[in-house]
């Protein structure tokens, strides 16, 4: 179980780095999909199979498809990739890389020294998730659904075809 976790975590870190460094937008998105799948595997090894499945369905399977869809419509070509290349200078990435390195060091230290024990990996089934969502977290669920409804209505309003008397 632990080996699976480590492997998936390494894949997630490498693919996320690739997302930042790719110049062709679709390639970057594909690495992001791999990264999300790796994170789903991490969830699964920690016992949260339900969260892992939702991660794949919603993030990798729906949201990223829409990203790919938009990038396809923009019809980027070689010039865009070259321009992207000129943007990624050490001046841009040095600062964030340094800060992330500090965090990565902390994480490694915590892992090796055994501080901050990892959450006890126990299986959380769909039933427990449902009970938690509609029990203690009911208010949050309702607020989230209101937010989504507002988003839906605004999107409908913006996309309305006013030319046909709508």
């Amino acid at each position: 179980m632990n080996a699976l976790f480590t492997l998936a975590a390494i894949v997630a870190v490498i693919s996320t780095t690739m997302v930042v460094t790719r110049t062709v937008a679709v390639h970057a998105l594909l690495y992001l999909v791999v990264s999300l799948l790796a994170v789903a595997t991490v969830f699964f090894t920690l016992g949260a199979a339900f969260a892992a499945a939702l991660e794949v369905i919603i993030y990798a399977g729906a949201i990223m498809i829409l990203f790919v869809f938009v990038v396809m419509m923009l019809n980027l070509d070689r010039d865009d990739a070259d321009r992207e290349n000129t943007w990624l200078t050490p001046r841009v990435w040095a600062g964030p890389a340094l800060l992330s390195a500090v965090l990565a060091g902390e994480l490694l230290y915590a892992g090796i020294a055994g501080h901050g024990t990892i959450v006890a990996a126990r299986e959380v089934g769909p039933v427990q998730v449902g009970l938690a969502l509609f029990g203690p977290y009911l208010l949050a669920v309702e607020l989230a659904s209101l937010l989504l409804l507002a988003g839906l209505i605004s999107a409908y309003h913006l996309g309305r075809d006013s030319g046909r008397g709508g």
Partner: protein
Amino acid sequence: MTLGFGILEIVVSLAAMLSAAAGLTWVERRLLGFWQDRAGPNRVGPFGTLQAVADGVKLLFKQDWIPPFADRGVFILAPAAGMATVLLGFAVIPVTAGWSVAGHLNVGILFFLAMTSLGVYSVVLGGWASNNKFALLGGMRAAAQMVSYEVFMGLSLLGTVMLAHSFSLVDIVMAQGRMWFIVPQFLGFVTFLLAGIAETHRLPFDLPEGENELGAGFHTEYSGMKFGMFFIAEYAGIVLIASMITTLFLGGWLGPVLPPVVWFLLKTGLTICFFILLRAALPRPRYDQLMMFGWKVLLPVCLLNVAVTGAAILLFSPTG
């Protein structure tokens, strides 16, 4: 279960699935011929049964050409992704109570939905990587169509999950001991069937390929075995959707007298024939009609089904 047995099971399932998908190309053409009052392929082997082998040999010997203007890596990745996701989807299908790779997985249905939603990438990326206008249009149609119908596919299964109290496919089949779910969940069955056709982009919903307006759509630039993978993945997708319909709505392996495996194969086979009949009988809708039908008819029907099922369960449950 030992590891060796598990691997053997996976290998046998994959081999059976791939040969079924390849054989299905012949079955479909023969049945279409029958319904359209013509012979269909009947020359290779007895009754033309070796037609699939001949087609496979032809595809293998064709030049495997990658257009110089294509995005090489993604172009190769796309058909492989389609094939892999469909085959992974079979992992959760329980053929019988004891024969399934992961039928007891407690998020079984969600795993299936995850694999179908990842399958969209093969079509979309195939269309994009070809760097061809027709292919790109096909890929974009596929993205919009499949993402939309995924929503209804998930929603149409909710009623079944509520009745069975489980996401695990083995539990869902066991819950159909008294009555197949096609009776109380008829709306769910119809919406799942429609969403399944749209997800496998089969006729009459094959707008990503729409040959009269897009050449061959997303796989215009593909030839040889890469096209073959798209082709076989589509047929494997039909087998997958038909097995899901059997498992979720037709009682899976349950049935009197005959052994469970026979019941499962019988139900799945008849469902596949129904898919082919739909292809033979129905014309292709326009693209905007397809999307409109999805969002304005199927979505309300699915939500209504969920609400009514929930109300009925609350009404008839002994605990009230």
